[in-house]
């Protein structure tokens, strides 16, 4: 059951003001996104049309605390096929970004942010890696980028660096 007292009618405006969220109110619920979604094909917990409806209804807490918002594989199939140009992939990014602001971060993305924020790369490079590359005849790669730390300082990624 959905109770109107639990709904936040401003949630859709909040999402639409977030980067990538602007077109959310264009959705007329045709379901093209969901029909072509490769994740939905495997797991029914991830249902793009349903997620949009939940946002438009104002089910803020349910959406932001859910596990399903992290399941978008960012394939952009729905993004390209949507007749209303809702840009669902970007909306999923906006929802995840708002969830992170509220302190709900999926551990996988927390770790990715920590690595990129710390090293400027997704992988920590050891001398061993560059020795291996040298043996293959490949040029060395830089281990860390101090300037990345500097420019990410004020961002949520910077906040995840220990």
């Amino acid at each position: 059951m959905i109770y109107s007292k639990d709904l936040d009618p401003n949630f859709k405006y909040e999402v639409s003001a977030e980067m990538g969220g602007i077109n959310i109110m264009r959705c007329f619920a045709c379901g093209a996104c969901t029909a072509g979604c490769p994740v939905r094909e495997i797991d029914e917990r991830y249902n793009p049309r349903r997620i949009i409806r939940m946002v438009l209804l104002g089910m803020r807490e349910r959406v932001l605390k859910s596990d399903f918002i992290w399941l978008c594989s960012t394939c952009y199939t729905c993004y390209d096929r949507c007749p209303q140009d809702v840009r669902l992939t970007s909306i999923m990014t906006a929802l995840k970004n708002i969830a992170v602001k509220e302190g709900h971060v999926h551990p996988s993305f927390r770790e990715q942010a920590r690595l990129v924020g710390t090293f400027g790369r997704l992988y920590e490079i050891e001398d061993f890696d560059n020795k291996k590359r040298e043996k293959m005849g490949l040029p060395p790669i830089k281990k860390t980028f101090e300037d990345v730390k500097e420019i990410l300082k004020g961002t949520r990624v910077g906040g995840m660096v220990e």
Partner: protein
Amino acid sequence: MRYALFLGCTIPVRGQNYELSARKVAEALGIEFVDVEGFGCCGFPVKSTDAEATTVLAARNIAQASRQGLEICTLCNACTAVLTHAAREMDGDEGLRGRVNAELGKVSLEYKPGVRIRHFSRILYEDFGPEKLSGKAKLDMSQLNFSIHYGCHYLRPKELYGGFDNAEDPKTVEKLVESTGAKVVGYKNRLECCGGAILGVEQEIALKMAKDKLDNVTANRVDALVTICPFCTIMYEDNQKKIEEMFGKVYNLPVLYLPQVLGLALGLDQRVLGFRLNKVKAKDLLQKLEDANPQETTGESAQAQEVRR
């Protein structure tokens, strides 16, 4: 033709066969790759956490290429889309560009519009084209059959790519592979996503997505699956054994990067194309090629190589 080679995070550490073969094919075709020391993460891995931070990271990389007056050549699909998308957003939004440049200013960088960003495969298609490549092919590849996996971000979102390929029915990589004389075999759901982006979120869903692809590709008789993105290869090759164990299947499907296939056709030695690094060994394919080209050599014979191993 000079390009700043953008490797991203995964290729230089987990996809050196892609890097090796791309560099060798470029060299053979007279393309010069410039390594930019400051190139780091494109920004894709932090998009779910902070989309604006992604734009800052992307802009940081683009700014370094523009300082050297170079176009960017990417190898990874995700890097391609993230860099292209960030440029598009900044070019259309002065406020965003101002905020990003305020951050970049701290490290003496500035994002300026106008840097062209293209995937290596697109560069090969647009600047060389299948006919020219076909003219350079030295080996007879006509007995080989390949299926193609494009990966999502090479094609989508389509607004990023100016219609160079059809996102719903792509042909560019097919045509490049066919230029070698090899046959391309279609399969069910060929545009389906590899699942790589959610491997860390829900491994089971991601691996099921990859399993469906492996099932569909191996429903036909093909010598290998050809990819153009390291994420996709991690799903189909690095995780192939795990998927086989999880679902009680046997695929034994080699997964080759496009430049490895093109390199073979150009007559390059399989050793310099990094075949040793492929986890599912392509020895049957190499043997087939050698049998069809007794005069030419693809390196030491696959059999001899196996003995040495």
